[in-house]
């Protein structure tokens, strides 16, 4: 029993949906420079280049509990687990992050 779709089917799919949206590529953010490695959360303002855009910021391996930033400029807390965070942009091409503060255990 072979369930592999025939090549023609794949070609047809590509033709029909040439610009199908893809899951955005996670972008790595180095937070270690200004935030202590023992901090457990960081408060940040994320600025996006669209009023309707959204960004998801999360610690490595913790995407399901990431923080959602909506709109052009919003502030929220992101949980830390090491020196890096990842950001995924939905509906935005550029972003900027301003660190407000952090919290120690």
């Amino acid at each position, binding site marked *: 029993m072979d369930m*592999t779709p025939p090549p023609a089917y794949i070609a047809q799919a590509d033709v029909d949906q040439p610009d199908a949206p893809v899951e*955005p*590529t996670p972008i790595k953010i180095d937070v270690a*420079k200004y935030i202590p490695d023992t901090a457990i959360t960081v408060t940040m303002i994320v600025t996006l280049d669209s009023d*309707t855009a*959204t960004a998801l910021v999360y610690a490595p391996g913790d995407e399901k509990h990431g923080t959602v930033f909506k709109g052009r400029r919003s502030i*929220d807390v992101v949980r830390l687990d090491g020196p890096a965070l990842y950001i995924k942009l*939905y*509906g935005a091409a550029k972003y900027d992050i301003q660190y407000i503060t952090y919290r120690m255990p």
Partner: protein
Amino acid sequence: MRKQLLAGTALAALGVIAFQATAHAATLDDVMKRLDRLERENAELRAKVNGQAYMVKRDKDGKPIVQSSVVTHAKPAPSPAVVADRTVMGIPVKAGALGPLIDNTTVELYGHFDLSGDLFNPSVFDQGTKFGISSNLSYFGFRVRHNLAPYGFEGWAAVAQMEAQIDVAAAPTERAALGSRDSYLGLEGPWGAIKAGKSQTPYKLATAAMDPFSGTLGDYNSIMGNTGGDNRAEFDWRMDHAVWYESPIWNGFQFSALFSPGQNYAQDNSDFSFGDEGQCNGASTRGSGSNFPTIALGAQGCNDGSFGNAYSAAATYRNSGFTAIAAYELHEQTNRQGDDGSGVAGGGPIILPDGSVVSTGIHNEWAAKLGGGYHFNDGLGDLQLNAIYEWIRRDVTALQEPFNERSKDDMFVSATQNIGKWSLSGSYTHATNTPGNPATLSINTAALAPAATVQANLFSDAANQYAIGLRYHFSKWASWYIVASELTQGQGGHYCLGASGHGYQVCGRDAANDTIGGATLKAATTGLTLDF
């Protein structure tokens, strides 16, 4: 024959099902692998097309990662389901069905448990070695954050927090009441945060992370920030009725400042602050200087360090493992009349054995400190080094200096070597001799202790504290530790272990609460911590 036929049919059917299931699973895996491979190739091709000539890094799930502030896919993806507004009974909510029924609001529940078993010996004639169980700085709380961006205030949020101590081991008192720890309401935005309520001071927070033994019997507050060398670290404080500002982080630099009005009826700050009935300003709840049990308003009962307006400020700079801090705090018109008996109902002059009359009065007290830290990998793992120098002063007159036990310099150094999940730490803290002392202490014998014959200002009260400890991190949120600490002090000293952190303090006191001057304090403690 019929049974054999049925059995054969069943066997054949099971075989077919089993075969199909295996073939089905194998084929789905194949399809998924192919799709995954296509997805990766697609991402790499996209990166090349966009001129990104570097190797595509991948996360642990194999998804490509880029380090850039510009997204590499040509068409922005739409918002995913995870960020879509949800509703409960028609009301839009950010959280799930059990979350808050207010849009753009999040509520976070958090807490910290620290329980230890302690072995300690204060070297006092009638005490010996004792075992204790302690809850150390355990707390829980919740934070509320209401995002104001959808209402036209981009980058702003209203924030609130309620935090309470948990006396996990000790009998709870009002020190573990709701709101007993950092609790506030405020606004947070691009220019930082302004909050009102109660908070640890910027002075305290500036170096809090430099003490690897916080909350244990090796806590640096036995000496650091501790003016009287006793249970209370006045300059490592949580200020009630305060308002404060926290700046954002500018290239690693951050500034914070706090103001707490004295707000009391008395001219000499000897009364409770408005709203703090039964609790003197600057005193530990149910502890040192608290004036518990309550006496009436106007009875001048707050005379053991109660102060008026308080100001605290700190600046920190962090960049790539390097940390530098500077901090300052002022307590205006601190009432120490409990030490000289003046202005105290029913009190009178206190005369020391040499005939001098104690005078401590009401004066400003302030503290300043500079600190630095460096974090780097030395091959074994991450090594953290810290150092602090602190000046604490009580601005008394020259005639009062012989009774001034509040002015001194403190020094602290610590090192923590991380090796895998283990952390090995050591610290040394030193307090210089103070100009004087208003007290008479006791000699460490059963016969002489009740007489309190040691005029403390004739002896040094300089002190040294040593601590060493090992911590195992089960995860970022749970750990086990073991700490040993020793404090030595001159005959005029009465420092304690565990001040302002541990569930109780180990002091040089006998069974009659006589203070033994110069007691050497030793302790070993082991405990578990859990954060959530």
